[in-house]
């Protein structure tokens, strides 16, 4: 008796496709969709306001950008701001490389480490589980502001100043990620695990062939959130690096902050470009939210 470990397709959904939909139901569906569109449009408009301001400021002239009364759309689009922002900081290329490397490493580390840890907490009974989980959760409860100096001292003593190690390792895994994945992993039916065990699969195989595919949205979320957190981090990279070649894009964005007279138009041009990778990663990750994931492959 071969019990498949792969989740079965949603049988009910394919059944409904062959049934003819009533006319009234179809109109109701259209109206609902329209209402949803309207709600989402209004919500989106509110949400993207700063983003819109960012882009429009990126295209403003210096006077428009500094105007005390906000200018919503520039008189003429100053596309050269992007060029000027690029020229202002000779190390942009290096900054982008650093940011990409650090973020990629951090995301990969987080997915690997958090998945394994979450699996242990959710699918294995072991000694000290409750206590350990509590201890881990408690590390989320202390504000980061008091952790800066002890962590910096650790890094300095390890000799990791000005290295990728300092920028990646402390953030290689987060309790937040472990917690989130644990919640999802807990929802996987024990029948699946028992079936896998009967099939001769150990923990690793069950994790890789069953748990991970069933948790794609959750893992995609963890990856995405980690990507954003790493890409946007500023203070830590600033404090643990001295050499300009080791710095990141967020530090580069600071180039345009001065005592008085910030060049907002250049800064926003740079910020817009800095945002592109994040948006790209988001659009790629959110595709995983469209896959239907059925959990009940064993039923029927």
């Amino acid at each position, binding site marked *: 008796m071969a019990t498949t470990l792969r989740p079965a397709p949603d049988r009910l959904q394919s059944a409904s496709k062959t049934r003819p939909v009533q006319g009234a139901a179809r109109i109701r569906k259209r109206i609902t969709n329209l209402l949803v569109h309207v709600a989402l449009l209004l919500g989106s408009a509110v949400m993207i306001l700063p983003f819109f301001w960012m882009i429009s400021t990126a295209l403003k002239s210096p006077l428009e950008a*500094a105007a005390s009364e906000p200018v919503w759309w520039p008189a003429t689009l100053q596309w050269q701001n992007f060029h000027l922002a690029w020229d202002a900081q000779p190390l942009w290329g290096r900054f982008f490389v650093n940011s990409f490397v650090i973020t990629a490493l951090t995301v990969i580390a987080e997915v690997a480490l958090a998945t394994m840890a979450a699996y242990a907490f959710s699918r294995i009974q072991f000694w000290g589980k409750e206590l350990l989980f509590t201890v881990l959760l408690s590390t989320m409860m202390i504000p980061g502001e008091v952790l800066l100096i002890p962590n910096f001292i650790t890094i300095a003593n390890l000799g990791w100043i000005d290295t990728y190690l300092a920028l990646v390792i402390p953030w290689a895994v987060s309790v937040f990620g472990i917690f989130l994945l644990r919640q999802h992993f807990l929802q996987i039916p024990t029948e699946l695990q028992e079936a896998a065990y009967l099939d001769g699969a150990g923990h690793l195989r069950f994790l890789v062939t069953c748990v991970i595919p069933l948790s794609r949205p959750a893992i995609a979320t963890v990856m995405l959130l980690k990507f954003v957190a790493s890409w946007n981090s500023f203070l830590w990279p600033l404090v643990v690096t001295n050499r300009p070649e080791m710095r990141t894009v967020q530090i580069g964005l600071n180039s345009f902050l001065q005592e*008085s007279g910030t060049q907002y138009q250049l800064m926003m041009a740079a910020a817009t470009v800095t945002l592109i990778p994040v948006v790209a990663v988001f659009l790629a990750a959110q595709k995983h939210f469209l896959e239907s994931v059925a959990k009940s492959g064993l039923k029927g």
Partner: protein
Amino acid sequence: MQIRRKGLALLLATALTVLAGCGGKTTTDQVTTITFWHGMDPASEHGKVLAGLITQFEKAHPTIKVEATFKGSYGDLEKGLVSAMGAKQPPTVAQVTDSIFGKMAGNSALLPLELPAAERSDFPEALLKLTTVGDKLYGLPFNRSLIIQIYNKKLIDKAPTTWDEFAAAAKTATNTTDKRYGGGFEANVYQFGTNFMQTGGKWLADDGKSVTFNSPEGVTSLEWMEKLVKEGSIYTPKDSKDYLSNVFNDGRVAIAITTSASLAFIKPKNGDPWDAAPLYAGPANASVPLAGANLVIMSGTPSAQQKAATEFLLWMTGKEATLTWAMGKTGYAPIRKSALADPKWQEFVKANPVWGVLGGNVMENATIQPTITQWSTIQPEITKAVEKVMLGKADAKTALDEAAATANELLKKN
């Protein structure tokens, strides 16, 4: 065997890396290396000037190498500095604002400076007082900007020279139909300080054990601010990014009391002619508040680097350097008497009269707020008093007395 050898090698390598990474201050052969942490991004205008100066310094001093690191804004720089001190790996030299300077000096984190007499006398006396604690000098002024008046020449013929003239000019130039205010200043603790110093007031009692900003002079200073704002002739910025220079450019203010660092950004939208003038004088004196930062040497710097660091400080605050800042239209003023007397400066001012506001004997009237360590907790109390008065929630005397009471309690703590 193999593994153990590899492990030993790894251990040695790590140990060497750690040792090599310690401090960043080394002396090999004849070259001394010092590290310098500052708050001017190399990609910004000021950062470029700074980088140029450092290169010039290194050329003039072949035995000294400077490793300069941009450590973010002054606030971020402070965090990095304190963290580095916690890890016992501070830089040799740092650029610190007055408030940070006070905290560092008060906690014995700075090296006292010994200056040759010739250098010492080249600084305006009042300026050196700002970086002196007790009777020791702990830093040198570096990039100092000052408060000036920027005014629209179409609306104001003569820059005010007294409080009354300013009040009168502001009233005349206010035009509600055009939504224009005659004057503009920040209704905060700094403007209060500006006024207070000009009434001859003192922040602290001579024995340093109590505050005296609630003296009659203090009340006068705050009431004057309140009166002007209530008369409706003053624009006050509504948030931290509402720069007076922008408001002036938009033509909504006729005289702006603001920092000389904004001079380079003045460009009235409608092309009106404008000029800069020294700050008006007060009832008792013509004191002028300074902003900007100083250069300091961190205590704990080994003696091998101390000499090099001192030379670096003296050169970077020397005549050539300060002229580069001032003539580079950064808004930072010349801080050396020799610089002000230099023909290059005279010519520059002739060709660019607006920038002359940085010269004269303004540095002799320079003031800053106290540099005692408790000031970082006392200043917010004064801010509260000013806010209360501006919001109409209290009168000046009550508010200042309240703040003074709290401040005296805070003074008791170390």
